[in-house]
């Protein structure tokens, strides 16, 4: 047997044994959002794995065709959850994307959009300017005006997507910062370091505040390490491995200083990428061990709370809540039960199921910005399924999902992070007021 990587280069190509795990049974097809939309084999997990397999054998080149089908993957990992054969598609995707980034030049338009996204999202300051622009845009009636004049309809699809995603934030909350330390209520059980997130801290400062309050109420001392930057999730999921690794190193440096027992994330995408730092930095002798330690200490906030025996009393909230699984929580981190259990433990809350729950909402990191057409169809489908369940409140644990679902919802149903419901319940205030 000849040891080659076929069309891949030698730097971490998708591994043959991982490719061989796929038995071509197709059990993953119905949970794949792109297959649900188009029904084409090469836009299904089985088909994508087949393409990787062919490339690994050198039977097809790494070209725009192949890149197109890997780009169209949302990385939602519903296929990993569905696969009875234990195919680690997450690893295959992570290995394939950087190879394509290296070997297949992108079109000019695609390059520009991606560059713009990566120039803004990971930087809170720039994000704030963009969001501020968004607030003014709404407040000054520009949004209504541009819509009326049909300008929005004439924007390229990617920009239209960004325009539609702008959430209704208040200027005050754009500049809200968390205190550097929040003391535990009662006897301290843990010292936790909170990741603020980049888009999160700008657009969902309220969620961060609620997270800190709930953790404190449950006996955690919360520290918010100074100078923390982006965790690199967007880069990692887009195949920009080197950028992601650089960000990971810096974040590890920052968080190690906090000397916390646990690192807490409340954005599913960030949590899942931080849990992958050990793999990302495995080849870096200076960081491999530290990355492994760091990754092992990361918890999603709902995961951590489920591990702690509840201490703070919960006040009733009468509401029918639809819980939407964020892919990076449910599939990447396998956290499905914990947020549901936490919500069920609030007296008065009735949880309701959503049809096609396993199907991604189309947010998926930057997907809705770079693949707007498919994302739009998925967003509509998800919103329709949620509306059919007629909930009073929608809860989901990821910033991207919150933005995406809100955009397509026909009716005005409040969308919250589950931690906000918990926060309201612990404080004994109505949900609407807790969020103010």
């Amino acid at each position, binding site marked *: 047997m000849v040891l080659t990587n076929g069309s891949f280069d030698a730097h971490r190509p998708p591994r043959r044994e991982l490719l061989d795990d796929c038995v071509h049974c197709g059990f993953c097809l119905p949970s794949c959002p792109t297959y649900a939309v188009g029904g*084409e084999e090469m836009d299904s997990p089985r088909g994508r794995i087949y393409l990787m397999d062919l490339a690994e054998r050198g039977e097809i080149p790494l070209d725009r065709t192949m890149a197109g089908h890997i780009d169209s993957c949302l990385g939602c990992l519903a296929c990993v959850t569905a696969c009875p054969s234990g195919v680690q598609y997450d690893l295959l995707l992570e290995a394939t994307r950087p190879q394509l980034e290296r070997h297949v030049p992108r079109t000019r338009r695609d390059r520009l959009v991606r560059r713009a996204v990566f120039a803004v999202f990971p930087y809170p300051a720039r994000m704030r300017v963009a969001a501020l622009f968004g607030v003014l845009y709404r407040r000054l009636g520009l949004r209504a005006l541009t819509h009326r004049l049909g300008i929005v309809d004439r924007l390229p699809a990617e920009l239209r997507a960004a325009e539609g995603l702008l959430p209704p934030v208040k200027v005050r909350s754009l500049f809200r910062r968390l205190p550097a330390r929040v003391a535990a209520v009662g006897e301290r059980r843990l010292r936790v370091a909170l990741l603020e997130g980049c888009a999160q801290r700008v657009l969902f400062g309220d969620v961060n505040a609620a997270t800190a309050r709930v953790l404190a109420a449950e006996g955690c001392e919360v520290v918010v390490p100074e100078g923390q930057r982006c965790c690199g999730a967007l880069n990692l999921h887009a195949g920009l491995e080197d950028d992601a690794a650089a960000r990971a190193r810096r974040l590890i440096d920052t968080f190690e200083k906090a000397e916390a027992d646990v690192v807490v994330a409340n954005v599913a995408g960030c949590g899942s990428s931080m849990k992958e730092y050990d793999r990302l930095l495995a080849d870096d002798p200076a960081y491999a061990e530290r990355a492994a330690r760091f990754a092992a200490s990361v918890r999603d906030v709902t995961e951590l709370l489920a591990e702690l025996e509840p201490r703070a009393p919960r006040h009733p909230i009468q509401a029918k809540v639809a819980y939407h699984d964020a892919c990076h929580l449910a599939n990447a981190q396998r956290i499905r039960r914990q947020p549901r259990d936490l919500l069920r433990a609030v007296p008065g809350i009735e949880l309701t199921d959503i049809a096609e729950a396993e199907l991604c909402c189309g947010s998926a990191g930057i997907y809705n910005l770079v693949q707007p057409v498919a994302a739009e169809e998925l967003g509509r489908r998800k919103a329709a399924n949620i509306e059919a369940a007629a909930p009073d409140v929608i809860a989901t644990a990821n910033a991207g999902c919150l933005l995406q679902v809100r955009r397509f919802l026909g009716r005005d149903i409040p969308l919250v992070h589950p931690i906000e419901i918990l926060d309201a319940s612990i404080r004994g205030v109505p949900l609407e007021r807790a969020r103010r």
Partner: protein
Amino acid sequence: MSWAAELTEVLGRENVITDPARLRTYECDGLTGYRVVPAMVVLPRSAAEVAAAVGVCARHGVPFVARGAGTGLSGGALPVADGIVISLQRLRRIVEVDPVNLRAVVEPGVTNLDISKAAAPYGLYYAPDPSSQQVCTIGGNVAENSGGAHCLKYGFTVNHVLAAEVVLADGTVTTLGGDSPQLPGYDLLGAFIGSEGTLGIVTQVTVRLLAKPAAVRTMVADFATVAGAGDAVTGIVAAGIVPAAIEMLDNLAIQAVAASTQSVYTLDTVAALVVELDGPPDDVAEQFEQVQEICRAHGCTKVLVAEDAEQRALIWTGRKAAFAAVGRISPDYFVQDGVVPRGRLAEVLGRIAAMADEAGVRVANVFHAGDGNLHPLVLYSEAAGEHDRAERLSTEIAELCVELGGSLSGEHGIGADKACSMPRMFGEDDLATMLRLRSAFDPGGLCNPGKVFPTPRLCGERPGRYRPHPLEEAGVIERL
């Protein structure tokens, strides 16, 4: 105009695939040992488009192969090199659920499970339940006359399809069967179901729905010997009990399941039976006791009774994931589908084990024991060069079933895989008669050619994985 240009014009560029890399993702179905790259794949969006595409093929003499979800295990959807694949994945509408008349009308690309999901609000379901039900299409089910665990009591696809709209090989659209249960004349719908895509393409199906049973009880009974489990199956049926399902898993299959899902099976048991009873609560309760007694009489070592719906679901998830889960304990495998008379289960399992030992290959068993429908999984590693040995054993097992008075296939179809074994089961006259039926529907032989019937080309050499030409490897020529 060339046929390719014509198809592109009729269907639109976005509904045809011609790019070589993309085409390759259609080169096989669930049986990956057979691969052929088609010349084109088309994805029509309506029955009218299917008819138009078939019409073009008929005029130009281009062979075509229908494809549902590509989960078939006999190479039924294996493409033809100079032909096209017609994917039904864009016909996924549930046209109607009619709770009054207990039926549903669906397009062929709808999955088996989605029919039951659509019927669930009315307390109804679609009974045939292949293990692949979450993904396989009703069109594929009709073509294969698929079965499942619960077909022991409820029958196969053929017992649950009332009518089918089909596109015949010349592009005409017609409906076989109809609303009334008894139609005069030949049962053409019956001929069509199980024809493996060789008589035409299904574009709409009317299925029967059943009311969910009042009570369901499920158990897993462990056995210290495979023979004991096999005899227990015979004992249950001989006692006049008709369970909804009797499934058997042997130790290798149980290990695979445990590696894959949250498993309820005993890891070190030699064999286990899953027995499910359904119907009126009193009958179910009484027979459930009886079944346990029969199992104990045949050396059952432990019985697990599902306490609630969740545990019952776990038992079935494990069973239904078993084939794919075998991927966890072996890089490659063949699934066989032979049937033996129920009374010979213990005997055939013993002989299979002996044959496996002799060939030096592992065989896992997970199957519909109540029907005597075996699914021996012959495990091998292509990389270790075990392919041919495993394939030979797999074929020998299928032919052993025929020898014992059974059949080559219970539910997966003959396809490309077992076509060469057909003469073992049927005489020349039988095959000639079948061929005449086929030719009456498809005189030109364009509709899924090369399947079911043995052909010298197929039985002489098997199309295998593409291997680069030496000149190509040397960089002298390039594959386009």
